[in-house]
């Protein structure tokens, strides 16, 4: 793993350098703007969560960054290299893992990695070392001589991540890396990404499952219907929503009365219900939450729980998006 770790020091000393930059990027599919005037900067060593519902434009943006597509308008660069004019320099810097990908089923695991290592121009000795390192990192060493077709979905996902890391890229573009995986495999992938973060890689990871990103992202971008609605450090975005306390209210029986009661209060901006748990966005003074509790009890709502929480990614996402696509 040594060659994968060597950049940590460098990245720590140069945290503020912009690694990924999008300037007024628009991508049309015929006349439909899949990505619409997106501008974004991601610094070195940052782990950027790209959040948005299906069809929001995440994959199109990542594909453009991976030099697989050209923008209709605007400019994208990675490490200062323009994706349109200097695609090979960009490809040398990035590791790209698509949201849906195939593998060469007839190959053995090490042959699959060897094939891609040769495509990344690694010499025979370096190739051998890299393959061994990425297999160890992704916990696939035991499967080195197994046929790719015999691997489970989660293992194939890890194999693709191993392939992505072969040439020790500075920037990782991971498009829905945990999609379609069972909870166990999901946790494994999450741990792997966390390990990559520790190695100082700049990571852009997309997902429509917010809890997946909440744990390890340093900053996020929320995209919907091709438009970037918000981007920045999670705490910055959260602080922008200051004053909005989220209440988690658990009711006994039908939550309809509770929802009706909450709708009557002007200081409750939004309330969503998931079974018996209601999440309500409270815009009033945080010290006056007790008044709302009293009101609910007065209205005859039978409460099992009433908790004041900080806004999490889900709350931020709900607040910012209009839900037009999902």
């Amino acid at each position, binding site marked *: 793993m040594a060659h994968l770790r060597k950049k940590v020091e460098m990245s720590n000393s140069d945290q503020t350098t912009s690694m990924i930059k999008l300037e007024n990027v628009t991508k049309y599919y015929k006349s439909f703007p899949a990505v619409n005037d997106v501008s974004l900067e991601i610094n070195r060593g940052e782990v950027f969560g790209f959040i948005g519902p299906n069809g929001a434009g995440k994959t199109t943006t990542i*594909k453009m960054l*991976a*030099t*697989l*597509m*050209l923008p209709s308008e605007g400019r994208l660069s990675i490490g200062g290299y323009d994706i349109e004019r200097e*695609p*090979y320099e960009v*490809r*040398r810097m*990035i590791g*790209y893992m*698509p949201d*849906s*990908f*195939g*593998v*060469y089923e*007839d*190959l053995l695991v090490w*042959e699959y990695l060897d094939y*891609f290592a040769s*495509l*990344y*121009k690694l010499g025979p000795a370096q190739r051998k070392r890299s393959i061994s390192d990425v297999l160890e990192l992704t916990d696939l060493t035991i499967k080195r001589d197994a046929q790719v077709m015999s691997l489970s979905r989660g293992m194939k996902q890890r194999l*693709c991540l191993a*392939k992505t890391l072969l*040439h020790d890229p500075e920037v990782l573009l991971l498009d829905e890396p945990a999609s379609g995986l069972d909870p166990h495999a999901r946790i494994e992938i999450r741990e792997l990404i966390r390990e990559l973060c520790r190695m100082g890689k700049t990571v852009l990871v997309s997902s429509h499952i917010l809890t997946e990103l909440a744990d390890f992202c340093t900053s996020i971008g929320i995209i919907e219907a091709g438009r970037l609605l918000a981007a920045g450090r999670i705490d910055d975005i959260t602080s922008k929503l200051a004053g909005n306390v989220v209440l988690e209210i658990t009711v006994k029986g039908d939550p309809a009365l509770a929802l009706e009661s909450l709708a009557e209060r002007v200081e409750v901006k939004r309330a969503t219900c998931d079974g018996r748990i209601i999440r309500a966005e409270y815009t009033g003074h945080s010290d006056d939450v007790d008044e709302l509790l009293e009101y609910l009890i007065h209205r005859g709502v039978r409460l099992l729980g009433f908790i004041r929480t900080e806004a999490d990614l889900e709350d931020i996402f709900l607040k910012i998006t209009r839900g037009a696509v999902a």
Partner: protein
Amino acid sequence: MRTRMRGKRAFLVLTGYVALLSLIIGLIYIIFKNNAPTSLLNNAGKVLTPVLVYVQMGLICLMAPTFSASAISSEREQETFDLLIASLAKPSTILFGKVGAALSYLVLTLFGSLPLIALTYSLGGVDLLDIARVYLVMFVAGVTYCSLSFLWSTLIRRGVVAQFVSLFAVIFLVAAMPALALFFTALASNFSGGPSPSFMNIVFLLLRTNPFAAIASLIPGFAPPQGIWLPNFPVWASQVLFYLLLTALSLYFSLKRLEKVRKWM
């Protein structure tokens, strides 16, 4: 190539191919031995070698599109194309790698038939140099069909459609030219006073593009008609040149297509 050669399939295909050729040659030899006069038996190679070569050429026409036409289409279908393009592989690397892989198996089948050719050669009536030229014609035809099929593979998204179109293109190349030549010859027989020399030249020019005609010009060999253009330029050489030109064009357009991959993905 590595995956193609793995397992029993490659071994079985190659064995089946050689067995089929052996069966055809064996049957023809038995019929020939029982019916041909003794004077001809001393030159049995003159009959058996062309049969062997024609069957091989026919198989090349069928195999080359099968191997090459799905090179890019299948990468797109099995969702591995993105990974390939996002790597440091240059379009030329992808092109020559894919065409080379398709061709390598074709070359292997050509090598597989060498022991049979050695047998028919030993029966007499065939020049070793002509056999070498015939193999050159077949090899170049294989390269051309692989290149042409690869071009279709970059143009057509679905592998099955790309294979079908490639096969059709190869059949057109092989059959359309002699068919046109035959048609014009039949037409000319209705002319009063017979066909004009330039008409015959055009007909012969069409035949110069055909690998089967090129092989026939070598084994058993035929003399070109009187008064044709470039009478001393061998038919096989003109056919090889024509196919090399086709190969160059196919590879050039495939390369251009791969260079602009970001515009059509």
